[in-house]
Each structure stands twice: as structure tokens, then as C-alpha cells.
């Protein structure tokens, strides 16, 4: 048994328009938790997919346990003992847990599925990683965190001794992430080598012993985690030193821009009241499911069952349709950019101008000059990295897609901009740029309402933080008095 379990040499992969990987070589030590880090578009996810056979590289060799291997599809990799826990879960939501776990080699009696044996097999797999899940439950009815457990159980049951985690915490709550970390540490002691793809610093430092940094598809370096500090890792990732971020705008508070009184929605949240003043960033903290997103969506008019009173600059808002919200200069950058934020098949220009096309039109005809000009202005302002305005949005990296969503609502010149997890799945460079834009907006005397599950982000950006728990506002902290500990206490209700 050699020390190196997996060796990648000169891996290259090219897509139309981008070189995703350019001669990357990495050695992965047996039994380590090895991080692949980099900004969005650096090639870390692509490299993970190469290792598990989802992508065939154009050049380079993969050596597993001293033998050169060629994976043509994921099943080759699974046979060789490489499994993946994927960012967007590759499972059939309409089937049961057991059916999913046995997909590919379903136990049968003749032509008929042997249900008893299937459930037994599934239970065994789940027990091995200590996951308490009903094998008969329909997968789609389970939370993302539990689905992920099932996926890990499946990979381990198929004999994986290398597991690749691709941004596993991107849709998990705080406590769910904690459980995942424990599981990864347990897997490590069981001798499974983990490759952890992420750009979240605190997770990496907590879990990983070795870090490989990629930038623009090229290998920057592979070093033990202990040799890095937060700052040196960021510098390695973005290739320059990050400017120190300043706090929120300490400008004068203006008049009340948005006033919400007694907003309720059956089964989601109740009796929510607050104000947002011009020049202010109000943050919403809370666990996943505390009702923060639902409050924003109700204000924006997406929730027909909501009751209460919402006023924008003193004018009543019917909050029954997004159209009226947009007319009153309200904007919402939704949590899920792919589902709610963008039409991925359309061009950047078309996405940017979608909510305000009426303003850029004369008698129903789009004024093409005006449209281009507007789109270009905010494309440049957000520094979207793309071949041009006419590029298809679906081909951009996550961070650039998020910039397009934000550009779209900045272009709408909102008086009140609501942003829901504005930097989720976005790399550090883009994150700073998005924060700068939000600061600019408040500095120009407009109001921002921000939901974020990243407490450091809230503490950095918000002038005031409202804490949600179980669909209610349970506390409000001014910036000066807030810290992570106080927030977590309020969020979880543990005194």
C-alpha cells in the first residue's frame, strides 16, 4: 500500500469558450481529507467531476492505487471505488430511498423486484454511516441534508474508498452542516479518502489536512492546510491581496422607505413588523425555515395568502403581485438564481432588462439602443465576466450568473432592494464586488433588506439585524451590539 492513493497528472479539459483545466497535477494521500479550492470558474468542480468519471479529460492520466485508469462514465469510477456526493443531487426524487440506493443493481426474484431484500439492503447501507432514514420514504419528501446522507450511504455501500464532495454544504443549514462534518470525520477514521470541493474557508480549515488551490484552470499549489492562514489562502485563490472590506455605510439615515406591519402568512410566519430607512441595510438572520425568505416573497407579492400592511414611502402596496411591487420600485434578488432569478436560455442582455422592458419600449416595441445601453451599463458596473452582453446566461459560472441577477435589479433602479442570500455559491472576489454594489446603493440613499445565512456577512453589511425563529421576529440587534454568539443564541432559542 503506497502513501498516494490517487495521482492526477497533466489533466486538461477544454469547453467551447473556456479552458476549464490546464495541465493540473495533484497527488492525494491515502486517508486524507483533501480540499480543492478556488474561485468560481477556477476548475475545482470540473476536476472533481474528472476524478469521478462525469467528465473525460482531453489530456492527462489518472493513477489509482498505482494503476492507470480511464473512466468513461461514473459507473466505471464507482467500480474502481470512487464515489461522488454531488452539488445538484443526481437522484430520482419520485422513487423511495431504498429504490434509489439499489438503482443499478436492484435485487430481484426472476422478473420481479424483491422488495424485502431491497429494503434490507438499503437499511444496511444507511446503518453503516449511522443515518436514521426510513428506506421506504419517498426521496423527494426528505430534506436536502437527508438526501445527501442517502447519497453518501449509497456511495459507501458500493465500496467507495475515495469520496468526492462537491460544495456539499451549499444548501444545508448550520446544524445540518455540523452533522455532515462529523460524518466526514467518521469516514476518515474508517479509512475513506475524501476530496472536498468548496470555497468556504472555515469548513476547509476545520476538515481538511491538505489544500490544493486552483486558479483559472491552473494549479497554483498543493500544501498542508496548517501552512495556510485565511489571508494567504485568499491571496493564493485570487492571485492578489484582497482589499480590506469596510463596514456598512455609516451615512445619515433617511426617511422610512419600507414599512411592514403585522404581516402574516398561515403556516409560514406571523405578525412580522419592521421598518427599513433610506441609507440602511437591514439584515435578517435565522435558521433555514425560519420564514425569512417567505417574508421577502410576501412583500414582493408572490404569496397570495399573506395578510397585513406594507407601505413603500408611505404609499400602500397591495403586495398581491410582483408587478405592483416593481412599479413601486421594489426589487427582489431571489435565493435560487437558477429557478427564480434567471432565464438560463436567454442572453445576458435579455435577462437584465426583463423586469423593466416596458420602461425601455415605445408603443410595445423595444427600443434596442436604449436596451443595449442599459444592459451594458450594469454589465460593466457589476463587472460580469462574460464574452459579451449577447452571451447565453446558462453558460456563465455561478458567481457571474449571480452578478447578472443583481445587475437586473440594480438596473430596475429600486428604492428598496431585497436580497436573499446574495452571495451564496459565489467566490470571494465576486462576493466583495457584490458587497461593494450593495454599499453603493445604500450610500446613494436607498434601502437594502438582506437575508443571509452567513453570519459574518450579516455582521459586516447590516446596520441592524432582525433575528427570525419559527416564523417570528424574536429579536433585533444593532450593529454595535451584535456578534455571532448572540445571533446564534437568538436563532436557535438556546438561552
Amino acid at each position, binding site marked *: 500500500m503506497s502513501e498516494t492513493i490517487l495521482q492526477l497528472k497533466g489533466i486538461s479539459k477544454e469547453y467551447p469558450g473556456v479552458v476549464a483545466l490546464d495541465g493540473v497535477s495533484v497527488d492525494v494521500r491515502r486517508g486524507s481529507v483533501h480540499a480543492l479550492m478556488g474561485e468560481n470558474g477556477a476548475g475545482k468542480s470540473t476536476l472533481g467531476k474528472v476524478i469521478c468519471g462525469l467528465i473525460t479529460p482531453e489530456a492527462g492520466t489518472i493513477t489509482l492505487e498505482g494503476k492507470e485508469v480511464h473512466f468513461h462514465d461514473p459507473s466505471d469510477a464507482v467500480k474502481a471505488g470512487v464515489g461522488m456526493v454531488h452539488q445538484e443531487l443526481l437522484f430520482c426524487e419520485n422513487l423511495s430511498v431504498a429504490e434509489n440506493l439499489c438503482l443499478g443493481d436492484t435485487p430481484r426474484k426472476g422478473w420481479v423486484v424483491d422488495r424485502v431484500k431491497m429494503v434490507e439492503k438499503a437499511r444496511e447501507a444507511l446503518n453503516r454511516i449511522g443515518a436514521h432514514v426510513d428506506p421506504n420514504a419517498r426521496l423527494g419528501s426528505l430534506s436536502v441534508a437527508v438526501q445527501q446522507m442517502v447519497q453518501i450511504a449509497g456511495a459507501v455501500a458500493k465500496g467507495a474508498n475515495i469520496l468526492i464532495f462537491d460544495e456539499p454544504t451549499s444548501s444545508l443549514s448550520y446544524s445540518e452542516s455540523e452533522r455532515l462534518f462529523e460524518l466526514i470525520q467518521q469516514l476518515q477514521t474508517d479509512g475513506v479518502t475524501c476530496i472536498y470541493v468548496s470555497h468556504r474557508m472555515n469548513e476547509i480549515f476545520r476538515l481538511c489536512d491538505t489544500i490544493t488551490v486552483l486558479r483559472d484552470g491552473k494549479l497554483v499549489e498543493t500544501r498542508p492546510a496548517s501552512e495556510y492562514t485565511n489571508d494567504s489562502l485568499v491571496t493564493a485563490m485570487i492571485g492578489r491581496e484582497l482589499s480590506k472590506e469596510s463596514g456598512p455605510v455609516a451615512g445619515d439615515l433617511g426617511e422610512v422607505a419600507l414599512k411592514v406591519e403585522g404581516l402574516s402568512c398561515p403556516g409560514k410566519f406571523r405578525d412580522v413588523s419592521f421598518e427599513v430607512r433610506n441609507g440602511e441595510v437591514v439584515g435578517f438572520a435565522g435558521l433555514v425555515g425560519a420564514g425569512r425568505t417567505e417574508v421577502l416573497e410576501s412583500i414582493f407579492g408572490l404569496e397570495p395568502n399573506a395578510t397585513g400592511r406594507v407601505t413603500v414611502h408611505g404609499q400602500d402596496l397591495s403586495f398581491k403581485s410582483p408587478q405592483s411591487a416593481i412599479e413601486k420600485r421594489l426589487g427582489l434578488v431571489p435565493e435560487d438564481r437558477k429557478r427564480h432569478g434567471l432565464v438560463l436560455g436567454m442572453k445576458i442582455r435579455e435577462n437584465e432588462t426583463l423586469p423593466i422592458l416596458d420602461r425601455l419600449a415605445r408603443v410595445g416595441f423595444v427600443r434596442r439602443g436604449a436596451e443595449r445601453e442599459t444592459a451594458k451599463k450594469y454589465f460593466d458596473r457589476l463587472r460580469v465576466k462574460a464574452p459579451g452582453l449577447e452571451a447565453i446566461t446558462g453558460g456563465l459560472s455561478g458567481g457571474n450568473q449571480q452578478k447578472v441577477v443583481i445587475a*437586473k435589479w440594480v438596473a430596475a433602479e429600486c428604492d428598496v432592494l431585497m436580497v436573499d442570500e446574495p452571495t451564496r455559491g459565489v467566490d470571494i472576489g465576486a462576493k466583495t464586488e457584490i458587497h461593494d454594489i450593495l454599499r453603493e446603493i445604500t450610500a446613494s440613499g436607498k434601502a437594502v433588506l438582506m437575508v443571509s445565512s452567513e453570519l459574518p456577512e450579516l455582521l459586516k453589511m447590516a446596520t441592524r439585524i432582525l433575528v427570525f425563529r419559527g416564523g417570528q421576529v424574536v429579536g433585533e440587534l444593532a450593529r454595535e451590539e451584535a456578534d455571532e454568539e448572540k445571533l446564534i443564541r437568538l436563532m436557535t432559542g438556546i438561552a
Partner: protein
Amino acid sequence: MPVMLKRRLIALLNGQQAGLILVIVVLGLILTLFSGQVMDRISGHMQNGFFNPNNLLQIASDASFFAVMAVGVTLVIITGGIDLSVGSIYALCGVTTAIFLRSQPGLQAKDPSFIPFLASAVVCVGIGLLCGLFNGFLVAKLKVHSFIITLGTMWVFRGIAFVTSKGLSINMPQGLTGVFKATLGLEKGQYVVPSLLMVGVTILGSIYLARMVAGRHVYALGGNVEASRYAGLKTGRILIGVFALSGLLAGLSAFAGASYYGAASCADAQGYELFVIASAVVGGASLSGGKGTALGAMLGAILIVMIRAAIRTLHFDQNYEQIIIGTSVVIAVVLDQASSKLSARRLARASRTGGV
């Protein structure tokens, strides 16, 4: 101006329709080569059996009734829906207009004059519009998939046509036939009006889709319903709009068709919906929504009619017509997908090197 024209032409050849145009040209060349010489009945000259003005105009006329409907159905398909009822709307519009005209002796003028023409057009197109609004309203309000709704109204509309006409064929006034069989100065028998109508509708449809706010909204809705809702689009109204336009264009097609052929019956346009959907899909519309053009729909209709004509011109056994058309539709769509993949790759490469 020539530079402008050249640029447009290049854009067209690089665009989505490139593959389709190529297929049409190649098929045209094959037909020209293999169709042999025939004698023109009127002038007595010998000419190519396929590539002669009469035959080409005949193909264009046949295609035009499909194409007008296909432009409308393409709008529906871009939103991710489907309209199976256009053939029935065609029959219903034709029959009711013919009955209406028969009941109005004042509109029976032999010579085409403006007022009767306008009145009958308004009736026919208006009924189509109402049928389309009905479809759209049901789809938008009941939130049932348009396949189901229009499958139902397909039978309902044809049923109404059957009941009102009592299953009989009803003649259209000769004046109207005169309008749609006008040669506009061409030789006798060269009916050019339906083709002009087709081109006109295609141009209007293209402008609607490419230049108007409403058209952009149609693409957005088909691309992502949820994102459209979050962007403040009135999704219900957009849906009702596309079905209304689809119905309206079916009515327009019926007006042209019934006038051209001189009669309307409840059995008209039976099975047209499938030809129309095939035209839209061959023209590059994607049934999953977000993709499609008016020009593509027109070219698709022309290609399908050309394939039917090819069977006659090349003296294939007519009994194999359905097999040949079915196969060609599938092949055409596969080719179209391959060519659009190629052009996407070319564009990506161009954007990388910085030149075009």
C-alpha cells in the same frame, strides 16, 4: 444598403435556420434534376417539371395555409405549451363564415369589393380569436396542461362546426375566391395571394417575437416560468395572448383557405394540427419551450409540403407518403439540432478568439 443586406444574409446563414434552408435548397435541386421536362398547358413550352413558376407557386400556396397556422402555434410552443385545436378552429371559422355570408345577400357580390371583404374577414378572424381566447383562458385559469385543454377543444370546436353546418359543404361567395385567386399581373393560373399572406404573417410574427416587449415575454415565459413570475411578468396574460394569436391566425388561415378553395365544410383541415406542429418543430421550435421563430415555422411548412410534392414529382408510390413524411420530420429535427449545436460551437470559438 448592399452591405446591410449582405450582413443580414450572413446572419441568416449563421442563424438557426441555416440547416433548414440548406435542406430546402438541396431537396429543390434534387427535384429539379430528377423531375424531367413537362409541357406547360397554357403556353405550350417545355419546362422543368419541378422548377417552373406554376409548380413553385402551387407548393407555396399549399404551404401557406399551414404556415400561417404554424406561426401561431409556434408562439404557443415557445411558451412551452401546445395547441392541438388549430385544425378544428380552421373548420369552425370556415363553416360559420360561409353560413354567415350565405345569410347576408348584401355580401354576396360577385366582384371583390372592400366592405363585404372586410366584414367577412372580421367574422372569420374574430371567431378564431374567440376560440383562441377560450383556449388560453382555460389553460391560464384552470392550470391544466394545454395538451389536455386543446385536445378537448379540438373535438368541441369541430363538433360545433359539424352541428352548425349539418355536415354539409357550404360555398363561399365567388367574389372572395376572386380575391384569393388574383394573379396580380402574373400569368393565368399563378395564384400568388396566399403566398403573400404567408410571407406577410411571417414578417409580422418575426417582428412581434424579435422586436416587441410581448414577444420577449413569450420567450421568457417558455424559458423559465418561475423566473418570469419573479421578474413581474403577467404570466397568465401572456399565455392567453399566445393562444388568442394562435386562434386568430387559424381564423385567418381559414378565411384564406375557404375563399381560395371556394367552399367550407366541417371536415376541412382534419389532421392539420399535426402538420402544423410538425412545421413548427421542423422549423426549430422546441417543445420544452423557450425556442422557436416565425421564419422557422414558415420554412418548416414549406419543407413538409415540398416533401409531399417530391413524392409526386419523383413518381414514388403514393401509398408510402405517410411513411416518408413521418421519417423526414424526424430526420429534419435531428439535422436541425445537429446544425444548431455546430453553430453554437462556432460562435463560442469566435467569441474566444475575439473575431467573428
